[in-house]
């Protein structure tokens, strides 16, 4: 993990992680600790970390199909009121080459039929802005931003 203060005062963090849920978790807790240290941590009810976790978990689960050994690159730029994030992976592209719609799940069902998954892209789309995705050669690149404060 590398961190630096940019010229415009924003705080940039770059990390590389392996395609496992454990590595995603370790990376996120490291970033968390770093932000506390730098007194750069967004307020506790801001869900920037949720957005980043959902995208990373999807890369592990879908782009790399839950196989370890895949590279994931993450770049976060914390500005005063906005976080910009860039995700890069070398796994399978998004289905149809485009971002999932992320419809809300249906809760109008019996208790036994309540959904246990499929919340991810709904949460990402609810919390993030300026989503952009490109598959390019063997590389997937997703960028988005999250309002802070």
């Amino acid at each position, binding site marked *: 993990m590398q961190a630096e203060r940019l010229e415009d005062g924003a705080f940039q963090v770059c990390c590389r992680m392996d395609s496992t849920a454990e590595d995603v978790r370790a990376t996120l807790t490291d970033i968390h600790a770093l932000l506390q240290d730098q007194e750069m941590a967004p307020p*506790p009810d801001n869900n920037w970390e949720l957005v980043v976790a959902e995208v990373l978990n999807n890369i592990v689960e879908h782009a790399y199909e839950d196989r370890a050994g895949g590279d994931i690159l993450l770049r976060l730029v914390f500005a005063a009121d906005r976080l910009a994030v860039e995700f890069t992976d070398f796994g399978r592209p998004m289905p149809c080459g485009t971002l999932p719609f992320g419809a809300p799940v249906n809760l109008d069902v019996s208790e036994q039929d309540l959904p246990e998954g499929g919340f991810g892209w709904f949460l990402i789309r609810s919390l993030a802005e300026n989503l952009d995705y490109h598959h390019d050669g063997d590389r997937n690149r997703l960028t988005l931003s999250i309002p802070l404060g």
Partner: protein
Amino acid sequence: MRLTTDHRDGVDIITVDAARIDAAVAIQFKDRMREILGNEKPRYVLDLSQVDFIDSSGLGAIVAAMKLMPRGGKLELAGLRPAVDKVFRMTRMDSIFAIHPSAEAAASA
């Protein structure tokens, strides 16, 4: 129709203290059984006050846990911190679970 209950070696024995279970007492029998078995409604409160982060996998795991509850049982939540609370509200899962401010509040509810 008298039914007596007795707990032996981890099993509840219900004894029918009667010589007949027939049309004359069938409804009474059903009512008494409902009283006895109806007490079997476990209530669990999941205290999340130490949890400051939950993702959609964690949310899905809590839904899965709720489905494990015996029929009629309840899994309630307590002590949701802001980021966790927001995930429940955004996904409308706050309409599925009873949510208490704290485990203490849940216990006295």
